């Protein structure tokens, strides 16, 4: 028993595995075939029973007519049975009747083969029509209602009525049995049954094969999608799936995958550019330091020469350290390992502290600040990250501002959101470059050693930090008129 159960479980699991491995084409065909098989079986059954019912009803009517005739000939109503002798002649007459009119009455020809029998309550035959020879009609004792049923008489199927005969008090005194042979009708019915039974499996098998074919045809575009996707490896990502002719779900699937590939390719390209930029930025100072020191040690030199070269190398190394710091910061924020600690921050406090920290650098370049903040300027942000954002934007502003200009910081409320604008009067950013300023290693002047000293990572960090806190950063600029960065804080 246990082993048997185990075997069943194993077989079932194998079946499930096979099912899950089955191709979509097969599964569609199987689902469709099962559903259709149910429908066809249902339709066949209904048709069969309807035909059967119609056929029997016809025979039942014939029997009924005959019975009514017997009653009317005997001059009795159905519920006024007195004695069997009332019917005796009637049944015999019928026989004669039938012999006489055999050739001129269609109605009688139809019923000439009826068998009539009178029995008492215990089933004893009182009287019967002459065409019943050996076998008796089937009798079910104890029936209280008139009942039509199928039975056999001398080996052939007949339709029979068993009608109880009641006296005026409603007591059953006997039964009138009447049967007509079904003959052709039963052949028709059994033929119909056979046709249905044999055609059913044929229909199902044909249906399965057809559905499989159609399903195969309709999912062929999917095979194409799979083939294209399989061919695609990272260096070969510029391939695209050919769009099918019809604008259907498969078209949408293909175009969605293509759009995804576009984005991926874009990301790969940006990543590649970033790697190239980062390696250039790291290798350049490394080459400078290495080369300078190599040239330096080739020959003995004066003390001052050594000092100036070593100082130069230190500056380069510091720059490199700064770049590595920024790259690491960017990597950390981009890998989403740090979660911002969002809390209520008073914007003007943050601005004040940054401005006072940046003031010495600004004053060195003769740049002043104009801060226009407001009292109740609570925003939801991570204080440390917000400080880093503002510091990066402001230090950029200082970097690109000419001497004698000012940097304006303005805080305002726009309905439910707080806005912070930081404007400079610097060189500005060309319109066509505005959407690339947040990209890593982007710099307005493109020559890498403009003396501004940045790497073009500051704004990428700003963008990343802002995104993490749902702060929207936008930038507007006019060439040689200045640039305005706007921070839009999430509504509190």
């Amino acid at each position, binding site marked *: 028993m246990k082993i048997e159960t185990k075997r069943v479980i194993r077989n079932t699991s194998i079946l499930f595995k096979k099912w899950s491995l089955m191709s979509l084409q097969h599964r569609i065909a199987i689902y469709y075939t099962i559903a259709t098989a149910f429908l066809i079986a249902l339709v066949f059954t209904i048709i069969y029973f309807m035909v059967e019912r119609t056929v029997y009803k016809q025979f039942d009517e014939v029997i009924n007519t005959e019975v009514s005739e017997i009653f009317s000939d005997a001059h009795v109503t159905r519920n006024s049975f007195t004695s069997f002798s009332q019917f005796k002649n009637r049944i015999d007459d019928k026989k004669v009747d039938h012999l006489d009119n055999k050739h001129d009455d269609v109605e009688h020809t139809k019923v000439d083969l009826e068998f009539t029998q009178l029995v008492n309550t215990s089933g004893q035959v009182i009287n019967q029509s002459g065409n019943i020879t050996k076998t008796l009609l089937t009798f079910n004792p104890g029936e209280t209602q008139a009942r039509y049923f199928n039975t056999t008489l001398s080996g052939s199927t007949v339709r029979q009525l068993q009608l109880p005969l009641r006296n005026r008090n409603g007591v059953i005194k006997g039964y009138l049995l009447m049967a007509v042979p079904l003959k052709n009708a039963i052949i028709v019915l059994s033929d119909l049954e056979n046709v249905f039974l044999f055609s059913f499996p044929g229909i199902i098998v044909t249906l399965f094969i057809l559905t499989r074919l159609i399903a195969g045809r309709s999912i062929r575009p999917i095979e194409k999608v799979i083939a294209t996707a399989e061919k695609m490896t990272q260096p070969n990502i510029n391939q695209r799936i050919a769009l099918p002719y019809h604008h259907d779900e498969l078209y949408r699937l293909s175009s969605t995958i293509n759009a995804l590939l576009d984005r991926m390719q874009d990301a790969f390209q940006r990543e590649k550019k970033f790697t*190239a930029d980062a*390696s*250039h930025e790291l*290798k*350049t*100072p*490394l*080459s*400078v330091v*290495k*080369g*300078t020191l*190599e*040239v330096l040690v*080739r*020959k003995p030199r004066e003390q001052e020469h050594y000092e100036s070269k070593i100082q*130069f190398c230190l500056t*380069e190394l510091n720059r490199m350290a700064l770049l590595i710091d920024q790259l690491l910061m960017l990597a950390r924020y981009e890998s989403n390992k740090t979660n911002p600690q969002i809390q209520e921050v008073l914007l003007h406090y943050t601005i004040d502290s940054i401005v006072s920290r940046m003031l010495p650098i600004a004053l060195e370049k003769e740049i002043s600040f104009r801060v226009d903040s407001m009292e109740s300027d609570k925003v939801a942000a991570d204080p440390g990250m917000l400080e880093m954002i503002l510091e990066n934007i402001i230090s950029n502003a200082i970097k690109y501002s000419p001497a004698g200009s000012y940097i304006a910081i303005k805080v305002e409320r726009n309905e439910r959101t707080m806005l912070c604008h930081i404007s400079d009067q610097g060189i500005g950013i060309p319109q066509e470059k505005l959407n690339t300023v947040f990209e890593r290693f982007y710099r307005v002047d*493109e*020559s*890498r*050693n403009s003396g501004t000293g940045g790497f073009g990572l500051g704004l990428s960090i700003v963008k990343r930090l802002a995104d993490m806190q749902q702060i929207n950063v936008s930038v507007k600029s006019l060439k040689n008129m200045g640039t305005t960065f706007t921070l839009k804080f999430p509504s509190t």
Partner: protein
Amino acid sequence: MRLLIIEDEPGIAGFLKDGLEEEYFAVDIAYDGKKGLDLAMTNDYDLIIIDWMIPALSGIEVCRLIRKSGNVIPIIFLTAKDTMEDVVFGLDAGANDYIKKPFAFEELLARIRVQLRNTTQINDSLNAGPLTINPVTHQAFCNSNEITLTPKEFALLEYLVRNKDKVCTRSRIIEHVWDIHFDSDTSVIDVYITFLRRKLDNAECGNIIQTIRGVGYIIRES
């Protein structure tokens, strides 16, 4: 030997100039591609070192334009671009050699020597009659007697030996031995030639440097 360095990173250009000048090269620097191309087209350099990523015109463009003008001057790429594809691309653009940053200065020197070596030359030593000079060690010999020379004297002698049996005009000598910042007063050449002749004479080399009056100087093999 006069070199042109096209490099936008002042740190790299700086130590290259320092180091190469110590090796008796005359060095000019261009900080962007356009300037570099101008210099390469207007001056007669012996070798050009180009960075790939430079403003105005990329190193590749500069290289292509130089080759397009029919100039076969040796060009060495010195760049941070380090993939195999980059190297192939650079060399196919017409460069003779490709050095990836960061590089060793000694290697750069060796590769410069390779490019300056004559195709018939077996080693770095150059000969002209009894005279042998070695640009690697900066030594000059006359019949195995070593001659002590100043860097400029050596550079001048090297140029004359490299171009032996050819007349070297004063202007060409100026172009190849002094850098662009030199005020082209050619009389300085005569002064250096006098110094050289005296030192060669002391080493019993005879009158190997001959004057072509009104034109320049020549060293003859025989």
